[in-house]
């Protein structure tokens, strides 16, 4: 960092401890410490700046791919004010649509407040965001549990399919009152994912087969297994030539939380409960501690008497079970039947939100909400402006890229290095 580059991090860093505003010897005030904290490359700051930078890259793409703004910039010499105007209105329109489509639209809320009706329309965007976030939270927590313990579960796709498949069979195959049927469907989803996670777990423990390879290969196995089963008579919807499954009855569906027209459902509560449980598990349980030790240094764990092989099998099984719940949550929450390639996107995005959430359940919840908001808002943006949905994928990719490379964010924004242990490089332990 050269001394001519003045920056926030630099300016704050140049002030020695306790010698900022005020006199030496006086402990630094809370706002001074807050300012220091913000100039430091810690988790929250890096993630926030990654989002800011992602939106910035998106803005550039909008400007250079929009004919109106390009035209205006072409005439920048004669009408500079116009170029800026067009740019700001285009960006405002795009990001405004992104917000309205994912959180709420001020006009719709205003309409609802003044007329007393139309509340459903006002809450639809946020409901849709929560619906999209639900499977991401579940699968992301599952994947994060593995990552936090040094196990790279890349098999989200296969485990989502396994969970959804098991839940579908139990959903249409048995007939019970909802109070029994629904819990069984939920458990089936977890069990399906658990089996899909147990396979790479036992293979790794017994033979040393690397879970990354095995889980990726299992993705294909479950993908094509689903395709095959969808052509068999018990699963395929009768009277259909399309390869789609039977529909599950209402007793196997997750009830809506706020009336029939908002799709947000019990799955969200399950997802938040799972995230909270996982958080407790990792921080407080003896098994979670064992997993963390084995993940960080299996040799030390073994020397201290832990069973690394058992831990490997358990981590992958539990991780798979949570990812399986994600497949169940979309099946029983919004879709009610499955088709070829079901839920694969959630399986992969789970890896992304786990990364974004730094493998912590609370982080996964926030990351899932951000990703879900970008997706649902992006669809609205595509519908109301000429900007394609793919733009949000670019923004998501930039965010993840930067979160995975904290050193790059530190360089871009010229932050000070965070204290020891505050930031962990995500890719640590990949070679395991």
């Amino acid at each position, binding site marked *: 960092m050269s001394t001519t580059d003045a920056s926030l991090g630099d300016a704050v860093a140049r002030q020695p401890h306790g010698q900022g505003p005020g006199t030496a010897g006086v402990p630094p005030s809370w706002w001074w410490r807050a300012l220091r904290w913000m100039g430091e490359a810690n988790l929250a700051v890096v993630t926030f700046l990654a989002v800011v930078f992602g939106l910035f890259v998106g803005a550039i793409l909008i400007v250079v791919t929009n004919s109106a703004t390009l035209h205006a910039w072409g005439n920048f010499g004669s009408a500079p004010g116009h170029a800026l105007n067009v740019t700001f209105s285009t960006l405002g329109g795009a990001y405004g649509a992104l917000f309205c489509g994912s959180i709420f639209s001020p006009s719709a809320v205003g309409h609802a407040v003044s007329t007393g009706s139309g509340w459903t329309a006002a809450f639809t965007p946020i409901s849709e965001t929560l619906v999209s976030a639900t499977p991401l939270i579940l699968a992301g927590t599952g994947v994060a549990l593995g990552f936090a313990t040094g196990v790279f579960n890349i098999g989200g796709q296969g485990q989502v399919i396994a969970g959804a498949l098991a839940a579908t069979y139990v959903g249409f195959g048995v007939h019970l009152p909802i109070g029994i049927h629904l819990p069984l469907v939920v458990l089936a989803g977890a069990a399906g994912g658990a089996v899909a996670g147990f396979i790479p777990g036992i293979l790794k423990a017994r033979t040393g087969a690397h879970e990354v390879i095995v889980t990726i290969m299992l993705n294909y196995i479950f993908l094509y297994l689903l395709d095959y089963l969808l052509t068999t008579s018990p699963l395929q919807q009768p009277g259909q030539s399309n390869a789609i499954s039977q529909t599950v009855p209402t007793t196997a569906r997750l009830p809506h939380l706020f009336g029939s027209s908002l799709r947000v459902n019990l799955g969200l509560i399950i997802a938040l409960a799972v995230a909270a449980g996982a958080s407790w598990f990792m*921080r*407080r*349980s*003896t*098994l979670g*501690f*064992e997993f*963390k*030790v084995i993940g*960080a*240094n299996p*040799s*030390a*764990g*073994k*020397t*201290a*008497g*832990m*069973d690394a092989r058992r831990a490997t099998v358990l981590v992958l099984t539990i991780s798979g079970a949570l990812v399986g719940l994600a497949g169940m949550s979309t099946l029983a929450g919004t879709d009610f039947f499955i088709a070829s390639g079901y839920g694969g996107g959630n399986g992969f995005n789970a890896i992304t939100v786990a990364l974004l959430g730094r493998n912590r359940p609370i982080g996964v919840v926030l990351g899932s909400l951000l990703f879900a908001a970008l997706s649902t808002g992006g669809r609205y943006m595509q519908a109301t402006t000429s900007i394609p949905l793919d733009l949000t994928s670019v923004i998501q990719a930039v965010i993840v890229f930067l979160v995975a490379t904290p050193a790059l964010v530190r360089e871009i924004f010229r932050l000070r290095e965070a204290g*020891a*242990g505050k930031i*962990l490089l995500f890719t640590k332990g990949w070679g395991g």
Partner: protein
Amino acid sequence: MKLELTGITKAFGPLVACDGVDLTVEEGEIHCLLGENGAGKTTLMNVLFGLWHADAGEIRLDGKPVRFADPGDAVRRGIGMVHQHFMLVPVFSVTENIVLGFEPVRRFGFLDRAKARADISALSREFGLDVDPDALVENLPVGAQQRVEILKALIRDAHVLILDEPTAVLTPQETDGLFKVIRSLARSGRSVLFITHKLKEVLAVADRITVMRLGKVVGHTTPTGTSEAELATMMVGRSVELVVSKQEANPGPPVLELEDLSVQDARGLTVVDHVSLAVRSGEIVALAGVQGNGQTELAEAITGLRPITSGSVRLAGQDLTNATPRQALRAGIANIPEDRQVDGLVLSMPIRDNLVLDVYDQEPYARFGARDLARVREDGERKLTEFDIRATSADLPVATLSGGNQQKVVVARELSRPVRVLVASQPTRGLDVGSIEYVHHRIIEERDRGAAVLVASSELDEVLALGDRIAVMYRGRIVGVVPPTTSRERIGLMMAGVEMAVAEEQP
């Protein structure tokens, strides 16, 4: 070539590893750089070798200021370095290793093996560096590998040779051989910079001595003008006990009994070969031997970390052959592993968690599968004081501690269980003198409390200081068990594989 370092300063963040260091090595001089781990010796050498750049200060060769961009640059200017960990390709021959990166070539870029061999033979003869140029490096003993490293530097025409802790891996006899080589190098007009923390060697080989402590030079002296005690005081900054004081052992019945124990490594080679040994309550058996002669594997077999192919391990009659590590430690075996950073600690985790790595799931640290974090924290803080671990808080990651304090964390954890057998492998490797004293005292305390103690060490000083009996291992076998009054020479011969009876005949 005369080497002068003046005012070398190198800082890593707030840590000043070298602080205005002055050092002059005259032509043809053997200069010893003495200091504890962390005194800044290695940093200084890395600056000299062009691996790091000094923040301030100057390097002069024969009076001319130089600046090395990288190690290649330093080599071209006549600096040679033999690292503590050898940089050799095991599957290459001696000749190939020596000329690697510096190959004499014939026309069209063909390797000129004949010239390479001739050059190497000439150098070997000149300095008494005896190696077979056609042997594969992986088949050579450590001492010979070191000679290959020295030849590597010489063939690149090194006039200043840096040896970083060269004796750590050698038997006493091999060390004597190395000293002869060093002296002949000095006679030929080359300058040798010998880095070590072993006082005896400094006095044996040095022309002049520079002592470093905490990044600063604390004194220059010569072997005739000083003594071991004085050097130790300079190095540590206070007077130290060079010999551990301990009472006569008062052994009870055998507690740890190894019978005909054999262990194989991952490649199926026998690394522990029919070892029988009994360690009695209240005694320390020191396992002597050059590194890599099966001591590590024997310790791992006792603690359940390595499968036993034949024979048995018994603890006070209870069979622990092929027990799991957990069964072994719950039966009362405490284990101080050889590599604390790999096997002993989870560096990224807090001190307090590392202190309960073995009992995290037991009361009072956990109940019904939930950890009692308050209890773990409280206990951690208490153990900082109890075991003299220098840290401001037990919440800090172990990685932030010095090597000595890291080892104290391991010792604290292992000795917090009821101990009937203590197995310690290289318990003081890489530690500062203060921590060595501390660890030795703790080990003797356990003995006096009635534990059966087995200490594996490749440091002869440690073996002689701690052992009530000394078992010498060579190629997986115990070649003899001798009392600690045995001469260093005899133990040295046994470490080189000479049977006890034969060793006894030596003067």
